């Protein structure tokens, strides 16, 4: 069977070739035992773009075997940091070369605007790969003085081994880079399961892995349904580590499977909400630059059409500036154009799927029915495409579903507070702790509040902006471990201590 789909990019008429097989040992192949396909949908038009092979449990086995073989022979401890660095830089260059077409495929599959996919998602991904290319030849251990006359003790920071990586659909390329870059830099091999909603760019990137010259088996890509491929990876006895970004619910399952199988290292950061989810607070104090804060607040909930793990979806505004700020906020939110990703004017696209679309609307309906006040949005668009316009609720109360649950759409709840203590209490009143933001001109307040907020990332006088060299991750039920920065290296290395005796005689018997 031909493992390539020829797709026409509607806006340009250009035809692109997308591999649709499973990527194992640098080749695209059919499933070992299954005829299942995954239908890939364009969320702006609701049309099917193409279908790709749906990997089975046996395919995961084959991929793991390939990754294990590579780890033992051409990768792992058999490849120098310099070589890993060179290959990662090469990969970054290839992605840069193909950034326009990758952006178009990303937009077609995920809905986000082409220009944002190209300049932000892909731009950041290229930098991420280059950042970790720079670390690859700098993984050092320590020498430790124990007894200068008799022994040396030192640590090795060894690659963990075969890593299962499961990524979500909201930033397909960017999440791919965040996972692949540090794992490869440290010498691990990978079995990657992209989201079944957005598998296309992961497959195209696999082609570039082969082109860059990574040995076969170092990266393997198996699009598959979560309960099939994801579950298989998490309970696989020959996978040394699973890294997951997605919903807390699925995260629990993965951790359980890891515990029951081979106690593999499980690290997850939450992303998608299916039932419970993260709900990052965004606090506006009276001394804030209101105009700027309103810009950041909009970015915080509307960027990527609200489909962001750190979306600032609960906004708390100090009483004294509430009316003024709300007015600014609504005016600015109205300015966002949500439309087709290939339209230059679009600042946001549709939500990714029918299921997500229905979910977001059910929350909007619940907001109305539970008595929150709608000050913007709330009307469905006619016609095709899963478009949801910016929606703002005020007069919210703690127990409302729109305040408790993660919506993962462009829907904001706005509350008010009197004192700093109240704001902090409101902000922390969640089982999640991924992101948080605060706006204030009082440096002492900024330090106090950033210290009190229970979140893995706190933004002061901004929101949402990350850096490849700054760690990212969640507190509480938002996750375990940190991605990005030097901290990610710890996720993919295992410390071995070596005690080398050269002068101590063993006394026996005791």
């Amino acid at each position: 069977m031909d493992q390539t789909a020829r797709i026409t990019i509607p806006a340009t008429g250009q035809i692109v070739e997308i591999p649709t097989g499973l990527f194992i040992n640098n080749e695209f192949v059919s499933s070992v035992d299954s005829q299942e396909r995954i239908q890939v949908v364009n969320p702006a038009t609701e049309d099917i773009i193409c279908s790709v092979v749906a990997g089975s449990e046996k395919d995961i086995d084959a991929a793991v075997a390939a990754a294990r073989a590579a780890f033992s022979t051409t990768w792992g401890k058999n490849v120098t940091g310099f070589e890993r660095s060179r290959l990662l830089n090469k990969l970054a260059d290839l992605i840069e070369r193909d950034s326009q077409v990758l952006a178009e495929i990303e937009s077609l599959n995920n809905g986000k605007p082409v220009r944002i996919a190209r300049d932000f998602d892909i731009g950041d991904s290229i930098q991420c790969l280059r950042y970790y290319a720079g670390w690859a030849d700098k993984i050092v251990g320590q020498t430790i003085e124990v007894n200068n006359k008799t022994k040396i003790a030192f640590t090795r920071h060894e690659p963990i081994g075969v890593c299962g990586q499961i990524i979500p659909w909201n930033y397909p390329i960017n999440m791919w880079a965040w996972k692949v870059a540090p794992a490869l830099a440290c010498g691990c091999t990978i079995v990657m399961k992209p989201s079944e909603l957005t598998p296309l760019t992961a497959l195209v990137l696999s082609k570039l892995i082969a082109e860059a010259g990574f040995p076969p088996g170092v990266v393997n890509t198996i699009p598959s349904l979560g309960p099939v491929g994801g579950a298989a990876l998490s309970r696989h006895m020959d996978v040394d580590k699973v890294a997951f970004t997605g919903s807390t619910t699925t995260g629990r399952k993965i951790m359980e499977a890891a515990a029951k199988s081979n106690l593999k290292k499980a690290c997850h950061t939450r992303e998608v909400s299916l039932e419970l989810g993260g709900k990052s607070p965004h606090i506006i104090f009276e001394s804030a630059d209101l105009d700027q804060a309103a810009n950041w607040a909009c970015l915080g909930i509307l960027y990527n059409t609200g489909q962001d793990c750190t979306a600032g979806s609960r906004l708390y505004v100090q009483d004294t500036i509430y009316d003024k700020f709300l007015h600014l906020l609504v005016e600015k939110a109205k300015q966002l154009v949500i439309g087709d990703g290939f339209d230059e004017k679009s600042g946001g696209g549709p939500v990714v799927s029918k299921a997500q679309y229905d979910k977001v609307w059910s929350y909007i309906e619940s907001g109305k029915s539970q008595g929150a006040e709608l000050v913007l949005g709330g009307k469905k668009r006619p016609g095709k495409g899963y478009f949801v316009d910016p929606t703002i609720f005020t007069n919210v109360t703690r127990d409302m579903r729109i305040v408790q649950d993660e919506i993962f759409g462009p829907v904001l709840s706005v509350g008010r507070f009197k004192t700093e203590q109240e704001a902090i209490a409101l902000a922390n009143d969640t089982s999640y702790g991924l992101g948080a933001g605060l706006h204030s001109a009082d440096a002492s307040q900024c330090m106090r509040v950033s210290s009190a907020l229970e979140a893995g990332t706190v933004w002061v006088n901004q929101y949402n902006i990350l850096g490849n060299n700054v760690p990212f991750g969640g507190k509480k039920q938002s996750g375990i471990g940190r991605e990005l920065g030097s901290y990610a290296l710890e996720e993919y290395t295992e410390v071995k201590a070596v005690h080398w005796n050269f002068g101590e005689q063993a006394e026996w018997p005791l």
Partner: protein
Amino acid sequence: MPSVFTHEFNTPVYKGKISFDTGLFINGQFVDGSDGTTIDVVNPTDGKVITSVSEGTPKDVDLAVDAAEKAFETTWGLNCPGNKRGLLLNKLAALMEEHTDELAALEALDNGKTFNIARHGDVSAAIDCIRYFAGWADKISGRVMETSEEKFTYTRHEPIGVVGQIIPWNFPLVMFAWKIGPALATGNTVVLKPSEITPLTAIRMCHLAQEAGFPPGVLNVVTGYGSTVGSAISSHMRIHKVAFTGSTLVGRKIMEAAAKSNLKNVTLELGGKSPNIIFDDADLEQAVHWAMLGVFFNQGQCCIAGSRIFVQEGIYDEFLKRFTEKSRSIKVGDPFTPDTFQGPQVSKIQYERVMGYIESGKKEGAKVHIGGERHGSDGYYIQPTIFLDTNPDMRIVKEEIFGPVSVVIKFKDEEDVVRQANDTVYGLAAAVFTKDVKRAIATAHKLKAGTVWVNCYGLANPNTPFGGYKQSGIGREMGEYALANYTEVKAVNVNLGLKMM
């Protein structure tokens, strides 16, 4: 108008044409020196002039510092994010890779080392170094000490500003890379003086840096003499750091000048008289091979040359026999002939210096076992030389010769050899050959040297620090350690709530 150096290579190992401006590189442009004078570049295989390059003066150093300061305040320093600095360094490395053969040919022509070694050794090592430091550029982190509501205390590892760098003639391109790599990665701007004997690859690198897109003034290269340009750099009031690789003698002058001017931070990579210790149980064939490389590589012109070879009594005779045979088989000749291992010494002055040491060895009563004479009649070639029957007071045992001259010394036991090995004002490197890992580690730990090799010699890597104990230098280059040479730590103490009563 600076002159243009045009040269056609037509040799068994390289054929090609090169052509480039040989002016001073200041503020992104190639310019004449302020006095309009030039320096001849001499071919060490025949003593003839290859070309001439512009001669810099202290006034040109001022102009370079002006350009470097301006760049630091506007387009470089922390105004240019680390990942961008890294990107530019990687672009430079890619250009070096594209021009590998050309750079190797230039280096061989100018310095006398063989083309093959320049190509597979020097150029390759220089590229790796630039790439290694490109990777550090966006990873210069400080620390956070206190984050209470009263106080926020953190450190910044800031670039120093304009740094002066003075490099030697023995590995011109590699030394260039070792210096600019960490300096530019950390955000400093550079005023660099290559050796007046070997300026060509440094100048070619400026063309590549221009092509890579470094903003004007970030890298400035002023060719000139140590007593004028070098001195101007080390005593310049607006250069706050100087990094020097070269002789201990000149290193002292630089440190003095730094002290007398503005107490600029100084790192020095100086000379050595490194001991190579071969125990009875060494893998003899391997030890002979490494010992030969250790002392004769690069025409003996290595700061780390294993110039004092200590051989334990039990294997002395066998070692000497094999070492002699191996050394006799060294092919000395034209750098552009395929199987040449040893080229000429770099200059007439160096040639005369080394011959002077050989004479002193003979005069002081050491025995010439092989060599001891000029090789051929043209150029600055010297026969690989082995001296025996020396004593510790002889000049050839105490002083750095920097030529293809080795001293082989018999020793009894571990304690004896460690004492002899450490009995030197230097402390750059050392080596131990033995199959007994306990002895290897114990001895390595006792040697007072910045680098100790076990069962090998001379291996270096961009990720491993390099530098000397005692009079071999101050500071470490390479690895993460190099970053400390080019950053200044600022502690910021922000009072958020403490009130004075």
